[in-house]
Each structure stands twice: as structure tokens, then as C-alpha cells.
């Protein structure tokens, strides 16, 4: 058959057609995951605790602010999360006994250490979300990406005493190879790809890496911030998601993440929705309330090797 590649205007070989970071493992044919205490679902909550700069550098692959700087409106909307919203989120999490895993811009340790200290007091996990949410990694050399990874985990470690095991690139930016660099710094999991409701092995040059399920589908910023759903519709969406994955988890353990942005869900007209979500989840018996790092550790200890072997024997694509 004649190749259609010639009709791809970008030409061949200038860009990747696919990430090629994981193998195909369909829902209907895969090894089973068992969570601690036979829980059906591992549930984790991911507040993104972020610092957005007033004057970020230009030329980052896309505009950072929707308006010319100083974009005081959008800057202050986000800062609301660090002044007011985060404390409401913390109160809700503490009330329902759920520990969060924080996607943390490391510069928060410099700008607002009080917030990071409170996360530590609550025994929340901290993982790297780069330095600032206004410093994207698009187009960076590998050495520049290495500096971001290293600076972020060293800063968090220095401030909190915690060893960082996870990564989410700032604002979901990416390069073709950043996954390869994460294990060099002891990063064990990334949440930058979500093709699944279970952890999956990620192929890297050296070492091991897995992806833990995260979501933009039920993310507060997408659903309430961008799509404009009222908070009760967001709650309904999350409950439906939980109910489905709880049901499927009886057969094969699932993971559900609720990603949060304190400047979105922490608004006074929305915070009760988070209470509703946590009340619904914690009222179920077979739920493992976990951090991303705990899910990652369990998966490596019990399921990683099996998944890699299973994939190696799975049916290959047609040539």
C-alpha cells in the first residue's frame, strides 16, 4: 500500500507521532491489581499549590497570561488560592481525615513557607510541580530540564525534610524526553499522562518510572473554572466517576484522583462541593485513602514486574 506519510505536511521525522512511553493494555485483558486490605479503589486528592509570577519571561511556547502584564485580575485570582482558598481546602481534608498529595511549585517554599509548613503538619505528601507555574518546560534542553527537576526537589527537601518521589510538569508543559530525566533524580512516579485508571509502567532510558492516574476531565479548573459548571454539577460528576470506578474495582483495583486548585474549589461558593465529594467517598467501606507516593510504592512492590512482563507478551501492532 502506498504510504500516506507523504501527505503529512509536517514531513517525516521532524516530530514524534506518538509518545511511545507505554504499551497497549486494554481494559478487558490485563493483570489484576489488589490494593491493601482488598480495597477496590485507591483514592487520592491532589491540590495544586502554585505560584504564578507577575512578570514571567516571554517565549515559553505559549502566552502565560491572557492579558498584557501586569495582568492584575488573573494574577490576583490565582493568588486568592494562597490567601484564602488553601485554608478552606485544608479544613475540609482534615475534617474527613483525608491526606493530600500536593503538586507543589517549589518556589512556594521561598515565597509562602507558612503554607508548605502547614502541609507538612497535616502529613501531606509533597511532590514536584517545577519551580513556578509560569515557567514552562517546552523547548528546554535536557540540561535545563535537569536543573528544574533538581532545584525543585532539593528546595522542597531543604525546606520540609521530605524526599520528593513524584513529578508533574508546570502547567502540564512537556518535552519529548523529560520522562527520561526524572529517574536520574530519584523520581519514581509522574502524573503527566493519564491513559488509564490504573498505574502504568512508563518506558524511560534508564531506571524505572510509572504514571499514576491524574485527571483534567474532573479537575476543578477544567470543569468549574473553564467549562463553567456550577459546583453541584462538579460534585455529581465526581460522584459518578467514583461510583463507576468503585464498581469496577471489585474486579480489578482502580485509582481515582481528584485534582484541585485552591483558587477554584476554595472559593466560598464552591468549598461545600469538596465536602460533599469527601463525604461521599469516605462513606464507602472499600476505599484506600492514599497518597500518590503510597500508591506508587504499593504498585512497585506488588504489580510493576507483572505488568511489564504481561505487556512484553501482549500482541504487537501490525507492521
Amino acid at each position: 500500500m502506498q504510504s500516506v506519510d507523504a501527505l503529512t505536511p509536517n514531513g517525516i521525522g521532524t516530530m514524534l507521532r506518538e509518545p511511545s512511553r507505554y504499551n497497549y493494555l486494554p481494559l478487558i485483558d490485563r493483570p489484576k491489581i489488589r490494593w491493601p486490605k482488598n480495597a477496590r479503589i485507591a483514592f487520592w486528592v491532589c491540590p495544586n499549590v502554585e505560584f504564578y509570577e507577575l512578570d514571567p519571561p516571554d517565549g515559553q511556547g505559549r502566552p502565560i497570561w491572557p492579558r498584557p502584564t501586569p495582568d492584575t485580575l488573573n494574577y490576583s485570582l490565582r493568588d486568592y488560592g494562597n490567601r484564602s482558598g488553601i485554608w478552606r481546602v485544608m479544613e475540609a481534608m482534615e475534617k474527613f481525615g483525608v491526606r493530600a498529595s500536593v503538586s507543589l511549585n517549589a518556589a512556594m517554599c521561598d515565597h509562602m513557607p507558612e503554607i508548605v509548613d502547614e502541609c507538612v503538619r497535616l502529613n501531606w505528601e509533597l511532590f514536584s510541580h517545577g519551580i513556578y507555574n509560569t515557567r514552562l518546560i517546552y523547548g528546554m534542553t535536557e540540561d535545563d530540564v535537569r536543573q528544574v527537576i533538581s532545584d525543585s526537589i532539593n528546595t522542597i527537601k531543604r525546606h520540609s525534610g521530605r524526599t520528593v518521589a513524584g513529578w508533574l510538569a508546570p502547567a502540564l508543559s512537556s518535552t519529548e524526553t523529560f520522562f527520561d530525566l526524572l529517574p536520574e533524580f530519584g523520581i519514581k512516579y509522574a502524573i503527566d499522562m493519564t491513559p488509564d485508571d490504573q498505574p502504568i509502567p512508563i518506558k524511560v532510558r534508564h531506571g524505572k518510572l510509572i504514571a499514576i492516574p491524574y485527571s483534567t476531565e474532573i479537575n476543578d479548573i477544567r470543569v468549574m473554572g473553564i467549562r463553567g459548571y456550577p459546583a453541584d454539577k462538579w460534585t455529581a460528576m465526581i460522584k459518578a466517576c467514583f461510583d463507576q470506578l468503585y464498581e469496577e474495582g471489585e474486579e480489578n483495583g482502580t485509582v481515582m484522583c481528584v485534582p484541585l486548585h485552591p483558587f477554584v474549589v476554595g472559593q466560598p461558593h464552591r468549598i461545600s462541593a469538596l465536602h460533599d465529594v469527601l463525604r461521599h467517598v469516605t462513606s464507602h467501606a472499600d476505599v484506600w485513602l492514599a497518597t500518590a507516593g503510597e500508591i506508587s510504592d504499593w504498585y512497585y512492590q506488588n504489580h510493576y514486574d507483572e505488568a511489564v512482563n504481561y505487556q512484553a507478551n501482549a500482541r504487537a501492532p501490525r507492521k
Partner: protein
Amino acid sequence: MTADRLNYPHRRHGLDHDWFRHEPTIQRPRVSWPGGKRIALWITVPVEFFPLDAPAQPFRPLGSLPSVYPDSWNYSSRDYGLRIGIYRIMRVLDEFGVRATAAVNAEIARRYPRIIDEIIARKWELMANGVDMGHVHHGGLGVDDERMLIRNARTSLTEASGTSVNGWHSPGRSHSRNTLQLLAEQGFTYVTDWANDDMPYTVTTSSGELCAMPLTYELSDRHLLVHHNLTVDDYVEQNLRAFDRLDAEATHYSSGRILSLSVTPWILGYPHRIAALRRLVGHIIASASVWSATGMEIVAAFNK
């Protein structure tokens, strides 16, 4: 300089092209579905590959990766539909004994043969859906290049499945001026990209005829949930309204109607939405007026 705006070369009765005639739906011959049913339920499932390197020109179809290259995040969100979402949809349709018509990109047959196997095992119909979502059909495409795209799309599916492929759905529902003629030339039976009728009608080209099938755009999950950001409750409600109205019209005109649902693995296949599909299909299939069918089955009954 504005004189050409006062020149109306196609101002005549009917349409301004020769692909099909203007035929109001309610004036066409009566249609009978098998068993005297009023509504043919036609569920189509787009099975799509969104490449990281899809070109921005001439346009990117709805659902294309929206962020800066390499948008591996959104790639994986679409890929979720192929690992997980499509199998959830299959489970729901299996519960109701409904066979769908899968509109499958050629790249799926190469990358995910398991999906083709599961489609064939369920006796779903396979419809060609172009090469992938990075290869749209458009006016700037040379006729020979487009002929190759169509042939490639169909051959990949027939070789992977061992079945015949008679229906066509363009990525992004986009055509050149040659698309209909090329589809007829290659022996396709029906095309699904035009959104202008509730019922099939005949398309005429220099290479023969095609049946235009009314695959819904307005009521697709893509249009309601992704384009318009509505909730699944709105999605169910609007589709049920269409069902009720079409059912009433079928009675009124003593002629069968088609209810087309378009159900996308990376949209309705997510866990927060799949229960809505069960609710919608369950409600429809519980009606005594419904005949569930594939595209070719509907075309055959229509032509009887």
C-alpha cells in the same frame, strides 16, 4: 469591483450544486422498518487516533490535541478511549444487545488490532473513518492524493478484519469537492458527513450513487459535551427529546424514522459519564417502537 456580488449563476430552484436534489423529508416516500418498528436506533462509535504531530493546516478537527507540541497529556487523554473507554461502551451496549457501527481510523487497525477483533466478535459494522485525525479531507487536497487516502483507509480495515467496509465517515466530517465522487468510484454504499436530514437520501456523482445517512452532529457527545460543555444530564435529556419527537413523527407520517446516537470512547467512555449512556440506551431500547440496527442494515431496509 463589487459587480461579482450582483452575479448569481446558481440562482434557481433547488440547491446550488448537483450532488443531490432538494427533497423535503416529509414529502418523501414512506419507509418501513423490519417488524413495523417506528424508530431505527443507529449507534455509531468513532474510533480515532489523534497523532502528536497533526498539522495545524487546513484545520484541526474537534478533539485534536489543543496544547503545545509535544502534547503528550492530551494524547494520553484521547488514548484513554482506546484502552478503556471503548470497552466500557461495548459492555453497556452488550447489556442491551445493541450492535453499533464503528467508524474506525485506519491507524487503529494497525496500532490496536485488539479493538478490531472485539468489534468483529460483536458483529458490529466497520465503517471507514479516514487514515487518522491528522489527515483531514479538504479542498486543497489533490484528487489523486485523496483517492489514496480513501483507499488506504478502507484497505487497512478490510485487511485487518476480513469483512467488507461499505460506509464512510470523514475525520472532522470534512470533504473536498471530489470526496463524494471518489467514494462512489471506490464502491462505497453510504456516506455520513452531511448533517442536513433526519433520513437517508441519494447522492449522485459522475461515478455513481451513494446513500447519505443521517449521522447526528447536533446530538453527538462531541457536540454537546465537548463543544458546548453541557453535562451528561443535558446530553441524555436532549437525545430523549429527539427520540420522543421522531417517534411521534413516525406515527404521524406512518413512516419509519432514524435516531442516530454518536458515542465517543474518549468522551462518554470516561467513568464520570458512562452511566449516562446506560441510562439513555436503556430508556430507548425499552420502547416497543425501536429497531436497533447497523448502518448497512438501515440502508438495506431503506432501499427495500
